[in-house]
């Protein structure tokens, strides 16, 4: 009989012996080669973690294959990372190269460590959600194919964390990423009064709009949208199926850069918009992959060792970022929401 509220399995049962023995005793780590982490314990024990890229959207056969490998090389233990990579935990150095060989045989990329591009945190897109302005897995596949070299090497100035969200709900939590790929709508919701009338709570629908663009229309028992005030966030559509926000001709992708989360050296930073719109061109989204590659190239050509993308831009100044990348600056990049004032240049000192 099913247990209610038993909670997740106890992590202790999921840890390999070498971790149980050296839990909290790790002393330092090295990165002998891309994708391989070597952690050394006070006890002298050595743990090798092999990081492997995953599409994240996988079949159960993929998981079973991982299990087979883990059984053979890792005594039946493995883990996943905060960025959806797989990590094989090898306690026997002798098994290290054979495992890597096996992974290569399966065309599974080993990398994502140190000054590398890691996996792209992403979302559902057209595969499973109702509000996407773009696909998720397809864009991610296109970008990772294009930037593959940076995953399997460590030749970037610093970590490169790319995230993707297919609508402004931002399930990819892209708001603090080195590079954020965000699906954006660009047209006000088309209102389906029928749908609104059946089962939409008008007051909360009106209240949900960040810019107050929605007014109730009591006579019609529906709402009207002041299109001039609407910036297409789609929050009303999340609330009410009757606020049809999807528009294939005008939906697409915005690119934000320069975010970070770690507190190392500099404070965490938000990603900031540098390209307000690129079209959806499946299956490979060439405009998007070109833009991303261009930014990565400019950053790695100009940044100092260990300098995250946002740290580099803040050092040289955003005005210089646009000069160096050649990305055109437009008024769309200037904030006009609540905290806009804090982004205005209240200084006479700037670069031309």
């Amino acid at each position, binding site marked *: 009989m099913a247990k209610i509220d038993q909670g997740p399995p106890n992590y202790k049962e999921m840890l390999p012996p070498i971790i149980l023995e050296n839990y909290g005793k*790790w002393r330092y780590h090295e990165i002998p080669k891309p994708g391989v982490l070597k952690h050394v314990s006070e006890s002298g024990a050595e743990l090798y973690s092999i990081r492997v890229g995953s599409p994240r959207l996988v079949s159960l056969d993929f998981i079973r294959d991982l299990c087979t490998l883990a059984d053979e090389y890792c005594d039946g233990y493995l883990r996943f990372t905060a960025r959806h990579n797989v990590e094989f935990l090898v306690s026997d150095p002798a098994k290290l190269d054979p495992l890597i060989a096996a992974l290569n045989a399966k065309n599974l990329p080993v990398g994502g460590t140190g000054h590398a591009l890691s996996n792209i945190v992403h979302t559902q897109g057209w595969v*499973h*959600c109702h509000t996407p302005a773009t696909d998720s897995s397809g864009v991610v596949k296109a970008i990772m194919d294009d930037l593959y070299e940076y995953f399997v090497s460590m030749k970037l100035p610093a970590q490169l964390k790319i995230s993707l969200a297919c609508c402004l709900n931002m399930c990819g939590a892209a708001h603090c990423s080195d590079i954020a790929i965000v699906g954006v709508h660009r047209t006000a919701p088309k209102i389906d009064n029928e749908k609104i009338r059946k089962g939409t709570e008008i007051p909360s629908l009106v209240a949900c709009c960040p810019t107050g663009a929605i007014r109730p229309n009591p006579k019609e028992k529906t709402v009207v949208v002041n299109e001039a005030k609407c910036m297409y966030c789609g929050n009303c559509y999340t609330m009410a199926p009757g606020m049809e926000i999807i528009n294939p001709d005008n939906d697409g992708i915005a690119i934000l850069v320069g975010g970070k989360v770690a507190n190392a050296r500099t404070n965490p930073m938000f990603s900031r918009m540098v390209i307000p719109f690129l079209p959806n061109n499946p299956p490979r989204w060439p405009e998007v992959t070109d833009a991303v590659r261009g930014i990565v190239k400019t950053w790695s050509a100009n940044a100092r*060792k260990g300098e995250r993308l946002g740290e580099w831009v803040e050092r040289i100044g955003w005005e210089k970022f646009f000069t160096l990348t050649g990305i055109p600056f437009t008024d769309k990049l200037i904030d006009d929401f609540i905290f806009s004032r804090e982004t205005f240049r209240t200084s006479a000192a700037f670069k031309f």
Partner: protein
Amino acid sequence: MTDKKTPQLDELENGKWPSFVTEIKKAAVKNEASKELLHLLEKSYVDKRGHWKHGGIVGVKGYGGGVIGRYSDVPEEFPHLAAFHTVRINAPSAWFYKTDSLRKICDIWEKRGSGLMNFHGATGDAILLGTVTDELQPIFDELSEAGFDLGGSGSDLRSPSCCVGPARCEHACYDTLDACYNITNEFQDELHRPMWPYKFKIKFSGCANDCAAAIARSDCAVIGTWRDTIVINQEEVKTYADNGMDIQAEVCDLCPTHALKFDHNKKELAVISEDCSRCMHCINEMPKAIFPGKERGASILLGGKSTIVQSAFMGWVIVPFIKLEGDYEELKDLLRRIWEWWDENGKTRERIGETIYRIGMSKFLSEVGIPAVPQMVFRPRSNPYVFWPEEELK
């Protein structure tokens, strides 16, 4: 429809990065819904739009969340996708798995679902992607047997997650895995039965590197730190120097508080303890020589979330230092007081950070009973718009 072609998706099987299309095709071999998904997705690639409708309320007995209902907007064309729901499984701390437990999930899912999954979802759950309503209860029952439980969805506590911490990291300032496990179990009711103004996320990072991205991705970020001084092993410092590391340039010059002084002759590194902001940089660069202090605990940052509605917030400091020991009573008590206040003051679909912003930090602090300290702000207010309570006046 099996004869339909999927040229666009087929193209995405090329390239070096492992392909999700290949994965869908693998699932499609065994499962009709997955086969239809392949063609539905190809249709989306042609139409440049998704083909899913809003999810209705579906779920399992005794739970208010954990399942995302999903229905296709072209059921006639894709009958097996008429309903294609998602099940969220609360993953073990730091996403460690024993293969047999993973296999159990696969077996259940092979029998009762599309065979497609996300390892993991962006919040950290293991996601079973696509099944029909009737299968939900059986799936839950069998997962439960296998020792798993559902994750959060809706206006409830979302499945907390944590960094790998002490399990495989030398920097961990507290036991992130245990804290995550303990807190998750303590608040099962909050996790499984939506009862709040909106969702609430908790993430645990063992140090200021914040590998769980807690400050950006959780309403409550628990970030490891220490109250005393970093520990420096001068022998190892010398070794780094001898191996040609430019300690002045790579470490000292990048210390945000200029708290590190390197003596080139003695090859010794000194720290001005009270100036160190515990940013982790020097420790990251010289993991063999520099270590977090001995008096360890965590800082609590509140308010992190993404864009909708008031724009993205990052968590900010509300407790500079808290010990994380025993049964985490202090943290639990704090969370309860915060939720109680949020329940009373929050509007529907208003995240805690937005509620505090609307009502004001000082009101929040005094009503929740947290003492104000300068660590909570980068800098004091620049406007003189101060509120004065009756009792402080003549």
